[in-house]
């Protein structure tokens, strides 16, 4: 897989890697991609894709209000919170 750019894909996945990790993971993923390339041998002409083994359609439930997770419980594991909100670094100047 010569076009597999570990640096670019890790960026898409939002995972910071050290140069040593990039090299090691890149080599290992190269082997794995080489292995999974064997799927190219299979004739899949006219075959439908399976997303789920037992697809259920139009799954609905009665429109009845229930007690939700409390505000406090939802925020209880936040790494940073203030005024009942999650705090993140500034997005716009």
């Amino acid at each position, binding site marked *: 897989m010569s076009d597999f750019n570990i640096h670019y894909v890790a960026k898409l996945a939002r995972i910071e890697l050290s140069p040593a990790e990039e090299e090691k993971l890149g080599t290992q*993923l190269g082997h794995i991609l080489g292995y999974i390339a064997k799927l190219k041998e299979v004739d899949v002409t006219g*075959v439908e894709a399976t997303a789920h083994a037992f697809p259920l359609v139009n799954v609905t439930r009665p429109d009845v209000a229930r007690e939700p997770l409390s505000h406090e419980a939802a925020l209880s594991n936040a790494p940073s919170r203030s005024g009942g909100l999650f705090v993140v*670094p500034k997005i716009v100047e």
Partner: protein
Amino acid sequence: MSQLHRLTLAELTGRLGRRECSATEALQSSLDQIARVDGEVRAFMSLDAADARAQAEAADRDLAAGVTHVQKPLLGVPVALKDVLAHRGQPLNCSSKILGTYRSPYDATVVERLKAAGAVVFGRLNMDEFAMGSSTETSAFQRTLNPWDLTRIPGGSSGGCAASVASAMVPVSIGSDTGGSIRQPAALCGVVGVKPTYGRVSRYGLTAFASSLDQIGPFARTVRDAALVTGVVSGYDRRDSTSVPQPVPDYLSALEVAGGGSRPLAGIRLGLAKEYMIGGLDAEVDAAMKASVARFIELGAEVVEVSLPHSDYAAATYYIIAPAEASANLARFDGVRYGARVEGRDPAEMNSKTRGAGFGAEVKRRIILGTYVLSSGYYDAYYLRAQKVRTLIRRDFLQAFEKVDAILTPTTPSAAFRVGEKSEDPLQMYLSDVFTISCNLAGICGISVPCGFTAPKLGVPRLPLGLQLLGKPFGEETMFRIAHAYEQSTPWHREVSPMS
């Protein structure tokens, strides 16, 4: 020291029902056993003994008030959980550093069901980080060892579940299986492990790895115990839109069918997949399989050859679909709403630093692989193609099930390997799942039962081996019946590990 921890679930509920022991005594025996052996086995990451004692006391009050095991089938039974299931007020780490000091604000549906059935639910069992692995070595916290040989891995990803039952710390544990994560460690630790049909058990409160493959199931020391617990946790749940609204049969009465006569499996047809029989199989695994087939024939079953022509593509299909789904599911670990955070100048940098520091190597490998196969320009070549091959794999099984009631395979290509033996070679580790992953791709049910041991060799004790039975979609009753008849005709389930 009390020996209550060594009882099977059925034996324990018998004693509790006759008031020969209390739930509090049963729990204490489990806690004593954990204190005695878990310093070496290291199955538990943590446990809340006070909370467990309160549940055991409540069970004792129920028993004193005349509540029976017909009403609450697990009344007073200690049950431990893989660290991937939400248990209100308890830690949940998925054996990853990224969850920090997370505590679950709610109970998973399976935990609710276990508690409603009277179980004493406690403990956080070690696993491969986010259930990605086959040896429990990718845990960020500790290394769990195989109770039959402490130089070997217990299997994975539910290694803590298998090791806890195999060393008699608990009669039952609950794990999850995405590509073999219940059946493979069950086989390597010499216990019973069940992966129910996709949609049979609600996944609400299970940290998602690969949503179209994940299923929750039990570990136990006998098929009967595993069947009972499967029944307790199964059933439709409106909080999981993939749970299937189909009634749950009484799995225990299905076992009774196998009760009488010397040929309890007369009329049953079992399939051996010819694609699984060619080369590469460990000689002792092969011998155990042949002995199992002979046993099934003695029990009255007919054994025929079936074909699963796309078997050779299952691992490649799995290692596209599972990482793809994982890359999407694990996007939620971004340092914003829960878990550990590494600060950055902007949200994107905070996300990247948090994930870079919080995820271990295997999780990073799979997220990056999954991101790649879903990325623009590669989606059709990898992900869509894998989903089409998945259709062919599923079709192979449904066609085979027109001829047979269940398919027999070894659960694993070899017995438990040594700590560190495969941890530096991810591809070799992936290929150790070759017999278990098709079951998840096809969405069918599977069970691993003990089927013998390797011969002891110089410096290596005997190691357990597992037999896998794959059943039709929602065919758990027949699968349990066949597995139970086999088990009852063999001595293997009565063997206990040196740590018991």
